[in-house]
């Protein structure tokens, strides 16, 4: 009886957005009298930080610092339609809608600035700090604060824009299954290292090294929080979680966090996250949706590592100590 070490690898891809498309999201953007920008949505922030990302996307597009943008969302009286926050679609779908709305608002903003500066709008650029300047002659500039005041009180212009993003729905061909499930895919490869106690069947995940390709990390810190959390969830799926431990038997289902097991702080694997960025053709600044994908590769990587450690396959999730011991017993008998 011994503690045995093993490692396993898994590589995966994952589609962004609802399968087969047909999932719209809209956004509205307008400026306040002093040149702050309000983004109105009905998308839901699940705690992953959607509001922050939408603010950064709007700020980048209009050309102002992120703290000049306010997100008003999840209210059906004010926000235009969003299909919902699921299917790794929030950043991709809502982000594209915000870009379209922000571009329209930016155009009006530049037109007003052009009138104030007596130049052509196409000769203007934003400096990202809250000013609009003539390309190649940055000394000729006006603040967005003043442009907004002018638009509101002098020129009677609404600095605003409408955005809509919809990938037309694809209908699978009945006999061949020809279809367009998604327009872009995120990728991952995970290597897991485990220790398996062949006396108790207990698995300790020592380390997971996750490489994720997500199009573009719009906010690297928030990408990290989501990917680390997802990696934990993948390990949890592999080794711990189920509401029906003796499926298809319905008995013994957990009803609270004492009975429904998940890894606690003492069970955390050393988690390494490496991010690659291959911008997608239709993502906001190339972003793809990594929200679901990031919890997938750890499951088979851990399963393969368990086999590498003790030479038995557990092809039923979760890979519990009981299942490992039964497999070891069968192997010894066979």
């Amino acid at each position: 009886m011994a503690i045995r070490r093993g490692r396993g690898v898994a590589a995966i891809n994952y589609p962004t957005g609802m399968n087969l498309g047909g999932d719209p999201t809209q956004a509205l953007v307008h400026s306040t009298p002093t040149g702050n920008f309000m983004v109105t949505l009905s998308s839901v922030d699940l705690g992953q930080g959607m509001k922050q990302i939408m603010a950064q996307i709007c700020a980048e597009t209009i050309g102002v610092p992120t703290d000049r943008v306010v997100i008003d969302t999840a209210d059906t009286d004010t926000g235009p339609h969003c299909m919902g926050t699921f299917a790794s679609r929030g950043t991709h779908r809502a982000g594209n809608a915000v870009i379209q709305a922000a571009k329209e608002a930016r155009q009006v903003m530049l037109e007003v600035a052009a009138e104030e500066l007596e130049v052509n709008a196409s000769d203007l650029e934003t400096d990202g700090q809250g000013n609009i300047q003539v390309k190649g002659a940055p000394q000729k500039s006006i603040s967005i604060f003043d442009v907004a005041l002018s638009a509101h009180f002098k020129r009677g212009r609404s600095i605003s824009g409408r955005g809509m993003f919809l990938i037309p729905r694809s209908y699978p061909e009945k006999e061949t299954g020809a279809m367009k499930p998604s327009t872009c895919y995120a990728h991952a490869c995970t290597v897991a290292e485990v220790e398996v106690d062949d006396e108790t069947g207990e698995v300790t995940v020592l380390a997971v090294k996750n490489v994720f390709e997500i199009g573009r990390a719009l906010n690297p810190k928030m990408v990290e929080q989501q990917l680390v959390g997802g990696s934990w969830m993948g390990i949890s799926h592999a080794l711990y979680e189920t509401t029906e431990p003796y499926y298809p038997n319905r008995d013994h289902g957990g009803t609270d966090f004492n009975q429904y097991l998940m890894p606690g702080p003492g069970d955390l694997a050393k988690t390494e996250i490496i991010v690659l960025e291959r911008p997608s053709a239709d993502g906001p600044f190339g972003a793809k949706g990594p929200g679901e994908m990031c919890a997938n590769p750890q499951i088979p990587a851990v399963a393969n590592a368990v086999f590498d450690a003790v030479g038995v396959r557990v092809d039923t999730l979760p890979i519990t100590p009981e299942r490992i011991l039964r497999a070891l017993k069968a192997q010894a008998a066979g």
Partner: protein
Amino acid sequence: MELRKDYFADVRKDGLHEIGQPRPRLDSPGHVTGKTAYFADRNFPGMLHLKMVRSPHHHARIRSIDTSEAEKHPGVVKILTAKDVPHNVYTILILIQIGPEDETVLADGKVRWKGEAVVAVLAETERAAQEAAAKVKVDYEVLPAVFDMEEALKPGAPLVNEYHGQNYYLYDSGECRKVRFGDVEAGFAGADHILEQSYQSSPIEHAPTETTGCVVVPESNDRFTCYTNTQAMFFTLDNASIILQMPGSKLHFVGGTVGGGFGGKVDVIVEPIAILAAKLTGRPVCFIYSREEEMQISSPRAAEKVVIKDGVMKDGRIVARKVTGYTDAGAYSRHSPYGAQKGAAHYPGPYTIPNVWIDTYCVYTNRTPSSAMRGFGVTIGDFALEVQMDKLARLIGMDPLEFRFINAYRDGDMKAHRQPTEGAALIECMQEASRAANWPVAEKYMAMSSYRKEA
């Protein structure tokens, strides 16, 4: 976290102002100091609490319901049964034309899973509602139940859901969603090795910190405000509008920060009945799942069975792959027909295989309806596919990582569902994993590219 900017540098423009910056989240201080407001932080004068009487049986006919004792219980204000719900039989994906309507808001004549909602009790306090719910008498005639997907698909199995008429979802393509590419039997015939394996999972709970729920307030302007933690505002509003036969203009949904979704809050379960209760009582109504309800009543990730048959050559090429996927929907559809179909689109995984055959089934059993959960349709499939890949590599005596390089999809490769591959990056992920994990592979694999033609 490490951002490896050297990969794909030739296809990416950097130098943006706000994008790519690790700006601190404006909502973080609220979360870590406990000041963020969630829907359940709202309290209203006169607010009622809703508790469900639930089926103790997996499958039963309801002979009669007697609420007389419960009605007398102190604090009870209203008791609702199926006849009170205007459009009681519904299905949420009807909004995108995926029917039939197959589920009841409150059970009508039958229950099809243990825990199904039968009677809604509204009382002044949570405790009174709970105690009164225990006094509702439902007379059941227990029926045979089926829990195993294979059993459910056999002729003569108990019929789970009459709205479907058989124990599987009927797609326009028949009993399963199909993908056919190349000639899979010819591929097997020409293969050096064949490996057929079966993989199984069981239901998994989303386990959000905040359980599912809503608070509904009847407003003076004849509208209803629904404070909810749904993941999809209009999806829920529009479904509530159908169930209640109430114009959508009467409904105002307010969300906010949700304490964890993971797909567990895209079924439309708590809102319609709570709005109905608010309408019939004229008082604010609160309906929040207990932890036990969240664990065993709210939809879990479906159990899946995945059977994979591969034909592989000694040099590492997979020449044929047949996948049969079974998704255990439980008693009702919810999002499971969608999930099973997503599996058909996902297989055979991120690999280029010339001969592919895929069938994915959505099967009905007498268990808690499953539905959306992070990655559903793909997550368990990836477990099966990637364990299968490991087995295949070992079968032909090849390094598991090198085996994946040989089969990895690249830009321009035709997928089984007949879309050319675009934007692939699997090879680069594996190259970086090889370096980071000190798992060496042959130089020719490190020189590969998802998008550049090799010299």
